[in-house]
């Protein structure tokens, strides 16, 4: 029986399905959440994801207005890596309608840690600073009803790229975050075309990139999530220098992850992680030895 591959695409969604007699694999992309960055493209082991400009998709129904991505149906093997690496949670992978990321189960890929913790004890009733500050509207602060005077802060972590705005804005020091990706970003303003603000428009976090008083693009590094959407939007090669250094993730030992990390950061940074892993391993084994020798004594 021919394997049925179903592709549905419009401006707000891209759905790829592999329908077989006994199983159905679905990979869906929410284009409203997709910022047109290159995390999934770099992480995909099969090079199945490509960047698309709105002009490439002019013939589909209500085409998207900004840069986004598409998945090549002949290359995708539904491993789920894209859906894990997307810090905005734009991809969703499911098998028989149940969300399922095969590579996580087998520890072939780490879980990317969205670390946003709120010490709700510090929150006074009535404060909604974080809720208002969140650029992606992912925070809901509640205190009414059954909560009986306690404050509850609900954060949609799956879709949170951890820009840290909430942490900085919180007047009570109640929020602790840790960036998912650490890195460096520089704009070489000498290369910027006159009046261009493509990167500013592409950036999903407000005020990371802005036009300064001199009319040039400036960067506020502290809230940058290092997704690379600006770089994809930039019309000039080399005007934006984005370097990722590390990705905050659960420990795994996987060739697929090493290769993804190499593409996401650099060979040097991937090697650094490998080295630290082996140091960790040595440390663990030494510790075990030490304990054993103490016990034997």
């Amino acid at each position: 029986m021919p394997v049925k591959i179903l592709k549905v695409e419009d401006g707000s969604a891209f759905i790829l399905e592999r329908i077989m007699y006994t199983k159905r694999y679905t990979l869906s992309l929410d284009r409203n959440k997709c910022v047109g960055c290159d995390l999934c493209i770099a992480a995909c082991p099969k090079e199945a994801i490509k960047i698309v400009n709105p002009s490439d998709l002019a013939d589909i129904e209500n085409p998207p207005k900004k840069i986004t991505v598409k998945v090549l149906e002949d290359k995708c093997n539904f491993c789920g890596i894209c859906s894990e690496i997307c810090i905005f949670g734009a991809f969703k992978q499911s098998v028989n309608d149940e969300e399922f990321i095969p590579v996580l189960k087998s520890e072939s890929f780490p879980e990317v840690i969205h670390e946003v913790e709120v010490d709700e004890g510090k929150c006074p009733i009535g404060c909604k600073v974080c809720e208002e500050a969140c650029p992606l509207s992912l925070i809901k602060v509640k205190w009414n009803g059954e909560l009986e005077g306690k404050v509850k802060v609900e954060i949609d972590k799956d879709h949170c790229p951890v820009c840290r705005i909430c942490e900085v804005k919180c007047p009570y020091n109640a929020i602790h975050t840790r960036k998912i990706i650490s890195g460096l970003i520089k704009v070489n303003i000498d290369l910027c075309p006159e009046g261009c603000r493509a990167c500013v428009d592409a950036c999903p976090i407000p005020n990371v990139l802005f036009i300064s008083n001199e009319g040039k693009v400036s960067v506020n590094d502290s809230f940058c999530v290092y997704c690379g959407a600006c770089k994809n939007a930039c019309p000039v090669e080399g005007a934006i220098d984005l370097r990722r250094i590390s990705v905050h993730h659960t420990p795994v030992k996987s060739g697929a992850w090493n290769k993804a990390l190499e593409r996401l950061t650099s060979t040097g940074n991937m090697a650094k992680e490998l080295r630290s892993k082996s140091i960790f391993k040595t440390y663990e084994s030494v510790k075990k030895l030490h304990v054993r020798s103490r016990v034997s004594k």
Partner: protein
Amino acid sequence: MSVKHESEDLRVGVFVCHCGLNIAGVVNVKEVVEYAKTLPNVVFAIDNRYTCSDPGQEEIRKAVKEHKLNRVVVAACSPRMHEPTFRRCVDEAGLNPYLFEMANIREHCSWCHPSTPKEATEKAKEIVKMAVSKARLLRPLEPIEVPVASTALVVGGGVAGINAALELAEMGFKVYLLEKNESIGGHMAQLDKTFPTLDCSICILGPKMVDVARHPNIEIISFADLLSVEGYIGNFKVRIRKNPRYVLEEKCTGCGECLPACPIEFPNDWDMNLGVRKAISVPFPQAVPLVYRINRDYCIECYKCIDACGPRQAINFDQKPEEIELKVGTIIVATGYDIYLPEEGNLYGYGKYSNVITSLEFERLILAAGPTGGHVVRASDGKMPKVVVFVQCVGSRDVNKYPYCSNFCCMYTLKHTIQLKEHYGSDVEVYVFYMDMRSNFKGYEEFYYRAREMGVNFIRGRVSKVIEDPETKNLLIHAEDTLLGEPIELEAELVVLATAAIPNKGIEEIARILNVTRGTDGFFMESHPKLKPLDTPVDGIFLAGACQGPKDIPYSVSQGCGAAARAATILSKPSVKIEPIISVVDPEKCRNTKVKCGICATKCPYGAIKAEPGMPAQVISAMCHGCGTCAAECPADAITQMHFTDAQIFAQIEAALEKNPEDKILGFCCNWCSYAGADLAGTSRFEYPTNIRIVKTMCSGRVDRDFVLEAFRRGAGMVLIGACHLPYDCHYIDGNWKMKARMEALAKALEKMGLTPDRFRIEYISAAEGSKFAQVVREMAEKLRDMGRERIIIENEKLRPYLERMLGKKR
């Protein structure tokens, strides 16, 4: 012509066969005998009822002794049929077997001219005359003896190949079993039950597969491709590419611990893509050899399998394809068949409607170890269907698709209906739409009655269309009940299509590599449909199983064992004799001694000729396949192909065109394709005009320009060259291409001299195209008649001086 006649007293005996009424019913045999007696050097002529029978052969032996015959001509059937028989007979009479010639007056005469007995008799006489003319020039030849490698290659590890390999191995021969898939087993390993006994298929095949793996004389080469085959009977050189599994065969224990570690799944084609398998896996648990394989198309290289494999260290991502070379004495081809998937055009909604499946897919559904755990469910809702309709002859017995009957579909459909009834009883209604129920072997008819008794409804008629209800996904079937003669409609919840068995996907490539012909149906063609069902025209290569046409399991098993026996007849001897119809270079005439020539060496398809500078060219006898291309190409006429010498063929041309040449079409036909095509025209009783006279060569590459020139010089009305189809059908690799290059240039030259282009024709006719041969002759005869004798005679007179000049050196 410079023909050296040894001072030998030629004594030719002619034996004309009645073949019952096959020949005598049309041709006046007595008249042919009387005519034969008048031919030069014929000292004895007689007719027999059946020359090939024992008394017939005895008569030849007696006559050779009594009349001191030293040349024998038998006018009977095709030499492709009985030449070996009569050669043996002549040999027994104490005569060299190559002093025998056959006149084909059955396939080429009586069978294809039944309504013109007078003309047929005249044609028969001339065929005999041609044979006698050639016979007078025959020379005794000694067969070449070559050693035999006592190993065999079996291509294809299905049930036929498995049995062939096991039989040969049991006889003590080393066998290489080549399989392109990961596991041996073939289609039989995919099946749930077998008809009519309802034995579990893998339960009876599995042990055999294990026997193969364990047998010390068998080496399984799986997941490998056949690259090339060179050589000849007893001495084939085979190159094979082993594709990388990225799992080392010698280290993998088949434990399967890597399986749960792998995160990636992909459609399992073993399950007809109904289910999935892991990127590292075996196609099915009983696979032999039980070696896992990583599908790099899907693998994401997380290396979790390496961890799981641990100290066994069986996984190696750096594995490369490996080429190996084997030397084998014989080859058994058992490459099997494929199932037709009517995706294109969505026949009966297949591929478009989710509840229309093929029988092989049904097989995987009802199999307990299959992707649904043996539950027959619909793809649309996962529910058990209450009404199941089976549609027979999908693609087969269809002149627009596959006109042949696929042999086993009726029986497997009966099996499926019985299985459904056994599983679900009265919960399921079963209908079968059939054209004819064919249940023609032991226990099969009883099986049909069993299905009827279980309440399966049989409706005779072809389904015209299937329409899906978009809501329920049920299928509305439109058909005609041809027994009641009225249209019927039926709502089914599942439709199962019994699709045609078709030639394997790679059969074209295998046919090209092995030089084995295929029939019009695309399957391999046997040497003789009745008497050599397992042989191919290539000595030392045999067929078994469904690669020759759809066959069920017992038939395939018998063929596997039979092919093993055929192979063993070669392998059990230390050497074989090969026909000495090879080329010989006359060192006196060879130009290579004086100038840099070496044309023969470049034209030889087998590299069997060495032409060192300053030395006469040399033919390596054991490598020469006897196509005669070199003889036709040699600019100095220094090369002679034994048994097909220039002189012999010139004598045949002369004999054919002695009387009324302008009315005749002289055909040069290659032994394997066009001559066999002409035979098939006779066997099929296609009638065509009697004008054609056929000269047989082994390959169209042998047809010298001089033959064509001589034919026109002698006034031939038309000349036809029949060859194997381009590009790959030639039995001598590319003799047809050499002929094409040579003859297209000649045709241009002849046209310039004033020859009407229609009078010289090149046709590519396969052994299966009897109707094409008849059609070509009909067309040519018609054109000949349209042109009229007068015009041809005038044209020939104009051509003659040119032709004589061109033939100067020969004359």
